[in-house]
Each structure stands twice: as structure tokens, then as C-alpha cells.
């Protein structure tokens, strides 16, 4: 019994020390809370939507669905954070731009076209190029002009939404073609929301890239010590630059999902505050915001934790303008709990608690 207890607690200790412990624990905590408050949270039902196609619905599906953009952004943000030791705060604005580009290409000169003026894939590829170009702009400022990432990306953060509006001459294009809605909704016949598939595809590509290239090693090395990375033959500036371009690609994918959900765009609201959520996802994943080592899985889990939290708050009818306040409280609690100092203290406390009974036995 004793030994069994020990191995279980050892296992827990091991998990506790792992970085991924924080997002997992947060997820479990949120799940537990919902289970107690209202078990119907976990109900998933198969229904039909207005077009008569089968769709799954339920809060869990909502989390997976709406967490997609955040998870995709978290991938790029993790790399940027690791390599450059800073964050890109312009991703929300960049999503507005790339979404606007998609619509512009699809609509051509008419803002309410009857038929699409270009294939969706072309529109998406153009938006990828544009988003990567803006990523390259940020990357150049950070990597080659050595400007603080926060300051460098502030430029696009401020100007981005105006640029997005300018791309469509300040009009609000609406796409009536139903197939465009598939990317942010459902493909007829498939009951799972498409963004989930897109997010999974991104994760698989990321996993393969990290597995079959040295991207992870290089980003971490550069983020930890760029002087010695250079002496090991790396080009630190280029690697930092590259991470911003990759984040640009993530932005384009997230932008496509966002505009597809509405089949339209609202320049000032689309992907609002998403940069903060993406940065939080990285932090919740236990990654140091000052760069260096990262854990991609933990970041992605962190993104879903945030979406879980948002959805939970919505469910309890928290006003959307009060949402950020509630979120802040929970996030502070999670971040403090995950801080190394607090964890060390907790470990020490646990050890001393364990020792005391043992000492008593001896006495």
C-alpha cells in the first residue's frame, strides 16, 4: 500500500515538474468547475442546421471550433517568442488585413458579387503572401534593425485595421457563395466544424516540421544565446526573421477562417484582442516570454484553455464587456500558480509535509 502510494505520488511529482502540467491542470480545473456547476456543459448533440445537414453541437464543440484560430496563432507566436524573446502584438490587425485581402480578391471590383471573381484557393494564396510580407516587415524591424518586438509590431498594430479597410475601399463586401462559408462552418455531410480540421492540419504540419527540420533547435538556441549561436554557424537575424514570416502564414490561415465564419468582415472588430489571447496561450503553456526553450504542445493546449475559459464565461452569461475582467482574474491565478518561484515553494511545502509524519514515526 505504502509503496503504491509512493509511486503514485512520484508520478504526480514528475508530472508536476513537467511544463505541460500547467495547461493540463488548468483544463482539468475548468472541466471540474463546469461539471459541478452544470454537467450539461458536456452534452454533445447531433442536430441539423438550417441547410438540413447534420451538425454536432454543444459547448465542447464550440470550444474546439472557436479555439482553432487561437491555436493556429499560438503556433506562430510560440516560435516568435522563442527566437526573438518578444511578442508580435499586431496579429489581430494582420488578420484584418489578410481577411480583407481574401474578400477583395474574391469580390473583384464589386463588393456584393453574384459569383466569385476568383477561386477561393487563389484568394487564400494571395492573402498568405500579403500576411507573410507584413510578417517580414515586422521580422525585419526586429531582426535586422534590432527594435524591441513589442515596439516594432506596434506600428502594424496601430495601422493594420485602417490598411484592412483601405484594401476594400472602406466597403463591407459580402460573399453570398455558400462554399466560401465551409471554411468557418460545416462542409455539408460532415458534422464536425471545418476549423477543427484546419487546426489539426496545422498542428500536424507543425509537428512534422519540428520533427524533420531543425527549426525548434535553432529557434531555441538563438533565443537563449544569440552570440554563441552565431559562433556555431547559425544566422540569428535570419532565424528571427523567419519566425515572423511563419507567424504571418498562421495569420493568413486564421484570417481565412475568420472571414469565412461571417462571409464578410468588420474591420474594427474582427479578431479583436486575439493577440493578447495568443500571447497568453504561450504563457499559459509555461513558456518563458523572454524566449528560449519552448513546448509547442503546451502552447496549443494553452490556447484551448483560454477558449474553454471564454466559453465557460459566456455560458454563465457574463457580459461581453465584462468578459476580459473575469478572464484577467483567472489568468492571473493560473500564471501566478505556474511561476517557477511559486512552484518551488509548493514543492518545498509538500516535501516538508511529507517529512513531518515520517519524523513523528521515528519519535
Amino acid at each position, binding site marked *: 500500500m505504502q509503496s503504491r502510494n509512493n509511486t503514485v505520488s512520484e508520478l504526480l511529482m514528475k508530472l508536476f515538474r513537467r511544463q505541460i502540467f500547467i495547461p493540463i491542470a488548468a483544463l482539468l480545473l475548468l472541466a471540474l468547475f463546469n461539471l459541478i456547476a452544470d454537467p450539461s456543459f458536456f452534452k454533445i448533440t447531433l442536430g441539423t442546421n438550417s441547410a438540413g445537414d447534420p451538425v454536432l453541437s454543444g459547448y465542447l464543440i464550440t470550444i474546439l471550433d472557436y479555439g482553432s484560430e487561437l491555436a493556429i496563432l499560438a503556433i506562430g507566436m510560440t516560435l516568435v517568442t522563442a527566437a526573438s524573446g518578444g511578442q508580435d502584438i499586431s496579429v489581430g490587425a494582420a488578420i484584418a488585413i489578410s481577411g480583407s485581402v481574401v474578400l477583395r480578391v474574391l469580390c473583384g471590383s464589386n463588393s456584393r458579387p453574384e459569383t466569385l471573381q476568383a477561386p477561393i484557393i487563389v484568394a487564400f494564396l494571395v492573402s498568405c503572401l500579403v500576411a507573410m510580407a507584413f510578417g517580414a516587415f515586422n521580422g525585419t524591424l526586429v531582426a535586422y534593425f534590432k527594435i524591441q518586438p513589442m515596439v516594432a509590431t506596434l506600428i502594424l498594430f496601430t495601422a493594420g485595421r485602417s490598411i484592412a479597410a483601405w484594401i476594400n475601399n472602406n466597403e463591407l463586401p459580402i460573399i453570398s457563395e455558400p462554399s466560401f462559408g465551409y471554411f468557418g462552418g460545416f462542409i455539408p455531410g460532415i458534422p464536425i466544424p471545418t476549423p477543427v480540421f484546419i487546426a489539426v492540419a496545422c498542428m500536424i504540419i507543425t509537428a512534422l516540421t519540428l520533427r524533420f527540420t*531543425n*527549426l525548434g533547435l535553432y529557434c*531555441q538556441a538563438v533565443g537563449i*544565446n544569440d552570440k554563441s549561436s*552565431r559562433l556555431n554557424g*547559425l544566422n540569428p537575424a535570419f532565424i528571427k526573421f523567419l519566425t515572423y514570416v511563419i507567424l504571418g502564414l498562421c495569420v493568413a490561415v486564421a484570417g481565412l477562417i475568420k472571414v469565412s465564419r461571417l462571409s464578410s468582415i468588420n474591420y474594427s472588430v474582427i479578431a479583436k484582442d486575439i493577440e493578447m489571447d495568443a500571447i497568453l496561450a504561450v504563457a499559459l503553456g509555461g513558456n518563458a516570454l523572454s524566449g528560449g*526553450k519552448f513546448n509547442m504542445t503546451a502552447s496549443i493546449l494553452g490556447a484551448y484553455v483560454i477558449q474553454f475559459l471564454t466559453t465557460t464565461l459566456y455560458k454563465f452569461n457574463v457580459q461581453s464587456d465584462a468578459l476580459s475582467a473575469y478572464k484577467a482574474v483567472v489568468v492571473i491565478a493560473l500564471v501566478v500558480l505556474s511561476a517557477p518561484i511559486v512552484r518551488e515553494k509548493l514543492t518545498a511545502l509538500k516535501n516538508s509535509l511529507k517529512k513531518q509524519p515520517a519524523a513523528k514515526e521515528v519519535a
Partner: protein
Amino acid sequence: MREGAILEMRGICKSFPGVRALQNVDFTLCEGEIHALMGENGAGKSTLIKVLTGVYPKDSGQIFLKGYQKAAVIRSPQDAQNMGISTVYQEITLCPNLSVAENMYIGRTKGFVQNWKAINAKADQVLKSLDIPATATQQLASCSIAVQQMVAIARAVDMDCKVLILDEPTSSLDEQEVEKLFRLMRDLQKKGVGIIFVTHFLDQVYEVCDKITVLRDGKLVGEYAIKDLPRVQLVSKMLGKELDDLSDIQSESETYTAEDAEDAIFETENLASTEGIKPFDFYIRKGEVTGFTGLLGSGRSECVRAIFGADKITSGTVKKHGKPVKISHPIDAMRLGIGYLPEDRKRDGIIGDLSVRENIILALQVMKGFFKPFTKAEANAFAEQYIKLLDIKTASADTPIKSLSGGNQQKCILARWLLTHPEYLILDEPTRGIDVGTKIDIQKLVLKLASEGMSITFISSETDEMLRTCSRLVVMRDRKVVGELSGEELTQTMIMNTIAGGEAKQCSPETIQ
């Protein structure tokens, strides 16, 4: 407490995941004594000091200080400082982007309003009294590591302390500066300050210390008065075995002899970099061991950095086998078969948070290419091979390199470059912070590699180390090559004279166009 003791540590234990760094260690420091703390790399010296100064919490044990009734509670370096313990840690812990004066007085001034003018003046005075070539307002990062080291010492000494701890303070200093430091230590000793001195230089121990405490593998071996412990015994106490004979290492290594040994493999012509060295010519043959020597700041490191492309080249060319090659980044040099172990381990060598394994394979991995990562098994095999070969003390290959002891970090960086199997290996202070036993192993390794055909440039502040390994020495003064010695001329006095400029011999015709 023992009579006259000002510091006593009893039964100190400290474990890190996978390592028991200190096991039941006792240590006593008396008033007005210089006490050497000796042991191999990874023996636990720095850990003992960090436990004493509150950097790490101890697992068990007690610390007593003179003037306190109960066991002292030291939770942070700040506490230690307040109790009169001032410390120079092994890795320089100053802030490179602050000025020299700010570094010297940070954390010691009271109140919010500072009179920086007065502080700068005071700092300048201290710097001057210690003969440190730096000004108060200079940014610390712009000083060489030796000067940074001296600033750290100045900071510690300037505090009114009862206990002074110096963890390998001399590893980057040259002889004059070491002399200066010793004078300073003796002055403090007369005032009754107790000094703990960690070093791997036996000469220095026998020059200034009164007592020696030896640690081995985290355990206390014993405390000895200096006169009771001759050198040979000290070494065997540290290693737990007898040391190989130093004197015969040159003779047992054969020199590389092949027909192509006569041609220079690498040559430089009028090479100069942004670091302010005068254009220099240099060549190295296959299987040859050469050295650069000179005082600190004479530009010996800058020369090799220029060859490797570590600094920006402003003029001149590098030739391989007589053909000019372009080296504008380190990667170019690496592709041409050059390896470079940098002088400043913390700044230019280790990638602190990465594991020992990743640190070892990094250079080879970069050369192999972005799209061809080593498999886990391959990487592990490489790491294990070199951990064994160089006897690196680490809990596992997964341990972050920053948690290794200083000497073991150095060995990892050495392993990194050996793994790339370079044709030409540049070693800038490879034995810095390395214990006596391993130092000899490294020198032997250098000679062995050379006998297998590798060309090596070896730089060391210890002249006898260079004399033992190098067959040709380039002498530098004031960022200029002032002479070249080989064969019979390779003697301590000859080197000294050339450095001082007494009998400055002209470079041989081969090296001057």
C-alpha cells in the same frame, strides 16, 4: 564554534535532481586566514559557496557566524551581504549593460535619490587604487572579461566585509593582475578578514593560502594546514588517485610527419578585424600546434576570432592550401574545416537552457543542415561518446548545460568542436576552469590529435601549458604581432622578453610579405 572561527558550516547537504552535490560537508573559516577550497570539476565547491550565500537553499545542515548566537539564516545573497559576506561568483554575475560604477554600487546604496556624480568619483578612485584599466561611466560589456572580473573583485572588496569569497577569480587574469589580487588579499587578511579562495592553480594555493579544504564528489576529504600537505598529496587527495607525470607528456607524443606537412594548410595575409588588431600574417601546417601569446588585451583572442570570422573582417585574406577563401561568417569557416572554442564560455560558448546533448551536437548539426536533424538515437550516441571520452560529470545527457559545474561546461564545448572533426581547431583558453587532472588530459589530447594530422592553435594564459604543447608561438603586444618563437627559442624567459619588447625578434620571412 572553534576558537577564532568566524564562519562554520556543519553537515551541509544539497541535492539537485539526479546529483548529490554536497553530502554532509563541514567547513570552518578562521579570522585572518586565506583558506583554499579545492576539488575536481564538479566536486561541489561552487555549490558550497552558493549554499553559504543563500543562492541555493540547503537541504540540511547549519551555518554559524561569529557574533550570532544561533545558526544564521541566509536566504539570499542580499542577506549574506548584510551579514558581511561578500562574494565573487565563478560566473560573472554583473549586469553587462550597466556602467562599471553602477555595477559596483548596485544593491549597496540606500534610499532612492543617488548622487551619481559622487558615486562615479568614488568608483573611479577604487578602480584607480586597484589599477583597473576602466572608467566608472564605461559600459561593463565593453570591458574584456579580465577587467570585468577585476570589477567584480573590486565590488566585493570595497564592501566592508568579514568574509570574502572568491570562486576561481584568477581564471581569466594574467600574472600581474593575479599579483595585484594577492596583494589585496594579504592586506585584507591583515585586517582580520577571512577569505575563501577557490582555484585550480596549485601554485597560487601554495603562494597565498594558509589552509586547504579538499572536496571530492560532494564529500569532505579533509582540512589541512598548507605546510602539512605537499603538492603531490594534495593532488592525490583531490583526484583520489595519483596524478600522471606532467613532465613527460611532450616526449611521449610523436609529431605528425607526412609529405604534405610542409605546406601551410591555412594562411592569413594582412588580416584585420573591427576589433582593432593590426593586420597580421599567420600560417599553420598540417599536424602542427601553434600558439598565440601575449598579455591580456594584447589581441591574441581577436586574431583567432578574425580567422574564424567571428568578428567583422576589415581587410586581408585567408587562404586554404594557398587558395584564397572567403570567410565572412563563422559558418563559412566551419565549412572549411575550422573549429573555434571561444574564450568566454558563458557569453560565446554555452547555450544555457539547452541540454548537454544539444550543446554537444549543435555545431555538427548546423553543418549538416536545416533539413537533416540527427535522430534522437544518433544525437544520444554522440553525446554519450563524448561524455565518456572527456569524463563529463552530468546527471544525464538531458541535463541543461547551465546546471553543470564550470569545468564540465567547458568540456562540453570542447566536445562540440571535437565532434565536428575539424582540420584546424582553434582553442582559446580550453583549460580555463578545468582541474589539474583534466588539464593534463586535454593537453595530451591536443598532442594526440595533432599527431593524427589535425592542426591546432592553442591559446592559454599559462605559459608552461603552451610550452608543453606548442611547437611555434606567435607573440603579441598592443594588438600587434611582435615576434615568433620556435624550437630552441621556446623558453619562458624568451617569451617574457619578447612580450616585454626587450629582444623583439623580427618575424621570420615566411610570415612577412
